[in-house]
């Protein structure tokens, strides 16, 4: 299992850049493309697959791991796809395999979350497909390159990609489904879908202004939720949206520094986000919970996990000497150079916010805070090795970013370690922790609480079903009534009329004059009516069997055929 990612890595490193034809398809070709942009994503996907497999070595049963491998493979396929058709196929495989990873936890919640995940992503996939078909029709080629925001085809594709990028309000699948997967499943899930989508954005829509705005929103709104959320893996999922927001802003700015920043930050984010999820996952594996209300004081018995968690926390918060300091700052810097004042201020606010909820909250509530009384043993060795590898890479990138910079799509002139950058960033982070400490001590900080926080998934989890109930009742009743009217009563009248028109007409006339008759004749007329009804009772539709409908279908087809022969050409 470990062999496979290792071999893939060596093969990728040995493949020269270029576009290769895989095979002819209809009147086009299926292409595979290797260039710097796709390779950066490819490398980190393979590295994290390797680490994730080590982390999951203890898992019995092949189902989840098989789905994880297919998931990782589809992501690689999507990243190296040179044509839109292969991209779409791998895109859908990514969705399907993710649903199986979610279901592998086999809990009632994960079952529901998996289905919701599938439905949302199938919607996104359909938008993408519709956009691709229109684009191919217009451009006349399947080639997957720069598309840009112009016209309906690109809007549809952008919408489809936006679902996978978790751009609000289409983000709720992420925080809904990922935390419901198993300890190991979430680590795999957190990597591929969103980063593949960022890659597609960087390939097809660099410099799209709309992405700067939605990206900034993505960095801001999840941090409020992350402060309130009790489930620590869900907190990390909110911060995942926030980090992807930085990348989306980078892609939207579209300068070479910004695209470099987006790619570099994707690389770093994959490592530190999975490191954080692995450490919280290890705690969950040992204690059975990842709710902040149930944890605390674990540093006493899980010190190594705590250390790795803090490395991840420092990396995501962009502490000097940790990875995001060298990657996220490229995006910030690009926003600064482009004089995007508001965006830059929002990103800086989001940076402080990330430190607040992911950098402090995660380690603090897990390993310190109030003592939960839990004394779980240290995480199993395979988990420690996996976390150690990820932690090493986080620090390595932070200390010596040059190897990563060499992988980026454009030449890098950016220098992260300047005196003012280090001091400014440290001041930002120290004062953010000062704020946290002050609010904690004064008791203003919102207490951890077992709760559900409403997000946009409310619309399809609560409002949708309620809407169906409210509308469904009346619609079903109307349908019922119309059905009886047209399939039973009207045919009934017609049949009776056809069988014996004079009697029916005479009866109808007598019914009309009913109010003017005396009691005796009224009873007589009613009796006659009942008798007539009974003699041709409601068996009108009984003889309609399958054969009849088949005959009708055949007839319709024959009519179509005649029309076609008459009017074609």
């Amino acid at each position, binding site marked *: 299992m470990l062999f496979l990612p290792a071999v893939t890595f060596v093969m990728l490193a040995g493949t020269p850049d270029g576009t290769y034809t895989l095979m002819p398809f209809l009147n086009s070709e299926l292409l595979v493309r290797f260039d710097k942009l796709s390779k950066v994503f490819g490398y980190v996907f393979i590295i994290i697959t390797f680490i994730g497999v080590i982390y999951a070595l203890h898992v019995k049963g092949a189902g989840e791991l098989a789905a994880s491998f297919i998931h990782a493979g589809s992501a690689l396929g999507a990243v190296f796809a040179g044509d839109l058709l292969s991209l779409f196929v791998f895109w859908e495989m990514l969705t399907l395999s993710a649903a199986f990873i979610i279901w592998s936890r086999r809990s009632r919640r994960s079952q529901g979350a998996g289905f919701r995940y599938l439905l949302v992503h199938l919607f996104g996939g359909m938008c993408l497909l519709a956009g691709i078909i229109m684009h191919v029709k217009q451009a006349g080629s399947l080639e997957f390159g720069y598309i840009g925001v112009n016209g309906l085809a690109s809007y549809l594709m952008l919408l489809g990609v936006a679902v996978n990028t978790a751009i609000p309000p289409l983000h709720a699948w992420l925080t809904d489904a990922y935390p419901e997967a198993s300890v190991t499943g979430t680590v795999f899930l957190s990597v591929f879908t969103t980063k593949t989508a960022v890659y597609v954005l960087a390939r097809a829509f660099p410099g799209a202004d709309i992405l700067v705005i939605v990206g900034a929103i993505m960095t801001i709104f999840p941090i409020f939720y992350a402060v*309130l959320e009790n489930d620590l893996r869900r907190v990390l999922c909110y911060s995942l949206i926030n980090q992807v927001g930085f990348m989306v802003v980078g892609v939207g700015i579209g300068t070479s520094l910004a695209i470099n920043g987006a790619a570099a930050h994707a690389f770093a984010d994959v490592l530190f986000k999975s490191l954080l999820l692995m450490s919280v996952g290890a705690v969950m594996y040992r204690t059975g919970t990842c709710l902040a209300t149930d944890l605390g004081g674990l540093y*006493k018995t899980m010190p190594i996990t705590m250390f790795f968690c803090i490395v991840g926390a420092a990396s995501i918060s962009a502490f000097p000497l940790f990875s995001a300091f060298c990657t996220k700052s490229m995006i910030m810097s690009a926003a*600064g150079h482009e004089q995007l004042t508001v965006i830059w201020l929002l990103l*800086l*606010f989001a940076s402080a916010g990330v430190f607040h909820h992911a950098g402090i909250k995660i380690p603090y509530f897990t390993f310190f805070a109030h003592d939960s009384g839990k004394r779980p043993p240290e995480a199993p060795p395979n988990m420690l090795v996996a976390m150690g590898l990820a932690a090493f890479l986080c620090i390595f990138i932070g200390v010596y970013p040059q190897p990563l910079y060499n992988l980026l799509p454009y030449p890098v002139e950016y220098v992260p370690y300047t005196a003012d950058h280090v001091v400014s960033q440290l*001041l930002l982070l120290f004062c953010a922790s000062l*704020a946290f400490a002050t609010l904690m001590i004064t008791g203003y900080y919102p207490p951890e609480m077992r709760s*559900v926080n409403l997000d946009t998934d409310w619309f399809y989890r609560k409002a949708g079903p309620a809407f169906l109930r409210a509308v469904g009742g009346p619609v079903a009743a109307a349908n019922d009534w119309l059905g009886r009217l047209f399939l039973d009563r009207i045919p009934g009248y017609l049949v009776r009329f056809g069988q014996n028109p004079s009697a029916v007409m005479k009866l109808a006339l007598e019914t009309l004059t009913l109010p003017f008759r005396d009691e005796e004749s009224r009873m007589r007329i009613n009796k006659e009516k009942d008798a007539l009804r009974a003699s041709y009772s409601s068996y009108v539709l009984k003889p309609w069997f399958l054969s009849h409908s088949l005959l009708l279908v055949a007839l319709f087809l024959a009519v179509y055929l005649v029309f076609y022969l008459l009017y074609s050409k």
Partner: protein
Amino acid sequence: MKREWDFFDRPGNRKALLIIFVASLVFLLVIDFFIHKHPYFGWDGLPTFYAFYGFLGCVLLVVIAKNMRRFIKREEDYYD
């Protein structure tokens, strides 16, 4: 039985950590005045800009989040 590792629960250690934290913060605030800046907009090069922004940003974050709870908080089994 092995004694439990309770480094962070001892009052002396906590106090030492706090002192280190405050000392480094003061140190950073002081050298912030003497460092050559490369500001993007001008005003972001002012001394202690990042310090104030970090502190106020986080306070604002928590204040808004705490008040959001009134609108978005539901019982844990809300969706079940």
